[in-house]
């Protein structure tokens, strides 16, 4: 439906993943840090411990610069990257939930204006007023979380929305409740790492140092345990069966689990160490903890995104950006069936008809069929796979590319157009793959391009591309 942006050097999906992971880290931090700071500020006010304000001031400046503003920018970055990578997926979300996002925007404005008011009014307003600002920050941050979780969880479990078409059913979907509590709990380990980062940067003789480290570590450990318990006993059981199967397939590389589990163990051990030995905490450890958390979040968020493969919106739209199921409640008819009959070329706005393809001498492609095949492969596969040299980089003699079709086909010994064609014809049989759309001629063209691509990447193959 739209032009495809494959990515440049790096696959478009990886841009989304990196920006999203950073956004999750920053935005989760703002929520739980606001609650932790509220807790400390209450103690400062009601137990008359003014020393705590020094920590709060430093934490607030860090949050203002790093978490709120960079978090906000990364939030916009998610819009930009998802729009470029999969516009129709984000379009479905926006047309369902634009006014929920508008509501989140209010909460977000409260957060950003709130942190400015909070930071710049230290010592300028009376303690009770300042404490109220802390309350507003904590509540506003939690409001943003509450709203965004409904939209995020919709993608995996649209629930009754598939029948009613009502946004409320899509929003309060089967995984909404466990996910909101799980994420809320998970924010506290991030906050604990943040508190460590801030307090270890303060003078050694700062009187509240140990108390803050212990409190933050305890909260972080508690949050981590609660989050794991929610995942095991609440979130996992309500996950769709399909997603549970995907978890055990090769769609999620083993390294992802290694990163996630290692991240959880390292976080647990680090927080326990902080709780038991607050005096031995160093800034470098805290920075390391933030990196560990980033890696674990990256792995977890990638896994969450892959769980619903091959759909971009489970049960409604597949990764090729086409609607594959009717939605009678909204008068929507599936698009794929028609395209199988008419063919993709010329039926969608940015897919030229074969006769419109005129191969210039400098195109780098051997013939017209391969050029047409490339267009179709890009259209149907580029959302998840590396389909050309454009999104691959070579480092230390290693070709780095996201789920490269050239590599996958080569590994499965499907290196000729015929073998590739039978392979892609049967691809819908895999749990994490969607059937290829198009006519017989279009499948032929796709197979020829993929043969050409395999030989580009693995030139040791003896076959030569025939000038068909």
């Amino acid at each position: 439906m739209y032009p495809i942006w494959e990515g440049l050097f790096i696959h478009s999906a990886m841009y989304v993943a990196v920006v999203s992971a950073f956004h999750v880290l920053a935005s989760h931090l703002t929520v739980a840090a606001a609650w932790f700071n509220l807790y400390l500020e209450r103690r400062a006010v009601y137990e008359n411990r003014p020393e705590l304000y020094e920590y709060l001031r430093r934490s607030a400046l860090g949050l203002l610069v790093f978490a709120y503003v960079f978090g906000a920018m990364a939030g916009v970055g998610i819009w930009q990257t998802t729009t470029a990578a999969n516009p129709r997926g984000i379009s479905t979300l926006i047309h369902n939930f634009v006014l929920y996002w508008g509501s989140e925007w209010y909460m977000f404005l409260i957060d950003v204006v709130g942190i400015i008011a909070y930071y710049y009014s230290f010592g300028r307003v009376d303690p009770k007023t300042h404490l109220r600002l802390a309350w507003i920050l904590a509540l506003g941050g939690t409001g943003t979380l509450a709203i965004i979780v409904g939209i995020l969880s919709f993608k995996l479990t649209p629930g009754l929305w598939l029948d009613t078409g009502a946004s409320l059913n899509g929003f309060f979907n089967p995984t909404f409740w466990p996910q909101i509590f799980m994420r809320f709990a998970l924010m506290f380990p991030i906050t604990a790492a943040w508190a460590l980062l801030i307090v270890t940067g303060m003078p050694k003789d700062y009187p509240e140092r140990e108390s803050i480290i212990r409190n933050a570590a305890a909260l972080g450990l508690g949050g981590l345990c609660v989050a794991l318990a929610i995942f095991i006993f609440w979130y996992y059981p309500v996950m769709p069966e399909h997603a549970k199967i995907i978890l055990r397939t090769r769609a999620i590389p083993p390294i992802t689990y290694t990163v996630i589990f290692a991240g959880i163990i390292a976080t647990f051990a680090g927080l326990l160490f902080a709780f038991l030995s607050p005096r031995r905490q160093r800034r470098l450890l805290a920075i390391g903890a933030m990196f560990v958390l980033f890696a674990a979040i990256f792995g977890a968020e990638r896994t969450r995104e892959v769980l619903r493969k091959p759909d971009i919106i489970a049960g409604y739209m597949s990764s090729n950006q086409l609607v594959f199921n009717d939605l009678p409640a909204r008068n929507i008819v599936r698009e794929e069936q028609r395209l199988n009959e008419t063919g993709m070329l010329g039926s969608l706005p940015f897919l030229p008809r074969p006769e419109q393809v005129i191969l210039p001498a400098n195109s780098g492609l051997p013939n017209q069929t391969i050029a047409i095949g490339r267009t179709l492969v890009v259209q149907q596969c580029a959302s998840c796979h590396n389909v050309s040299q454009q999104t691959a980089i070579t480092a230390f003699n290693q070709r780095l590319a996201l789920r490269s079709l050239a590599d996958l086909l080569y590994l499965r010994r499907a290196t000729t157009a015929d073998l590739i064609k039978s392979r892609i014809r049967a691809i819908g049989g895999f749990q994490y793959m969607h059937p290829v759309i198009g006519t017989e001629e279009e499948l032929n063209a796709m197979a020829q391009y993929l043969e050409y691509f395999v030989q580009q990447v693995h030139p040791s193959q003896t076959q030569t591309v025939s000038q068909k």
Partner: protein
Amino acid sequence: MNMTVGEMLKMMRDPLGAPFYPPALQVLLIVTWVLHIFFVTLALGSSLYAIWGFVRPNENRLRLARIAARLTPNAVGLGIVTGIAPLLFVQTIYDPIWYASNTLTGFWSISFIFVVMGGYSLAYLFYLKGSPDGKLLWSAVASFILIFFAGWIMHVLAAVSIRPERWIEWYAPNGIVDTRGIIFHAWNIPRLVFLLPLQAGLSLAVALTLLAWYFRHNTDDAPFMQWVAGVGRQLGLVISPLYALTGLLWAATEGVEFGIGWQTGTVLGAVGIALTVYFLILRRPMYDAPRTLLIWIGTLLIVGMVREAIRAVSLARFGYSVASYPYIFDWGSILVFAGTTVVGVAVLAYLVMVIYQSGGAKRDASISPRVDRLGAIATGMLGAWFGFFLLVGLYTTLFLK
């Protein structure tokens, strides 16, 4: 590909339609864009002034440059946050053109945020480490360039979006698709100059008069603040005629291209001339700053409508209009948005009042009882919002089948 551009645009619309009356979303788009462009142009203007103040220093200029250096990152932050709302609404009612321009320019579309992050970081670096002693001026210059470049990217995205008749030629010349998204396909220099550098100067001019007004009761600072307000007026006076002239050039190029040359020329020219006259007769820039702000916001609103008119006529050529965009009344969306709007406005009003009342004092500022009462109510409303949210959620989960 034998389909017409009109058929193509229609097919590209999301089948779900909008969840509310589309012209109302169009109004929200314009209004929130005004807020966004004010902060973005203010960031550019203050960034440029900070550089100027350190390059050609005198006592007052240096002091103001430090204030500008502090203002820049905050304005960038607010520009980003306020940019989210128009981004939401443009995707809803103009999805075909927004998504097409973003994919056609994919590399720059995703680079945008890294460019802004770089600009923001350097602006903060200059404010924290450079501006006290005038060091690290390079970071201020680099920050300005990056923020301006981010503006250029957004300008190109807008320019590409209103020229759907050329998308195919840009995406698939000779039928061969180009999926790199690295080419800047369209732009209009008068429009860019009008919307960014000139409006940056005017937003800064308005902000300077406001700064002076805010500290008007501080007698120790009176000479400096008088000077600041005067700079604001002078800036407005110099830029406004250029604004009128560039507006005419914008009308003569893009306006004419889409068949509304004289209409846009009349409006933009008149706005520029009216601003010139206003700054000319502005005798007390410090005390009349709130009125100046109102006039500037009104001007931005008119410019927002002109932008919208250009977009509308460019798409009307192919039968696309917001008024005919399919929609339903999605009551869940409306309920959540309306409830949050009431709470959000109350809390934001309180926060702005706290910033306003505490900003002038070094310490122990007094928050008026009225604002304090507003704070108690607004915080209570924010707490109650969770009850509302929970109730809606439980009702949906248990009863809405």
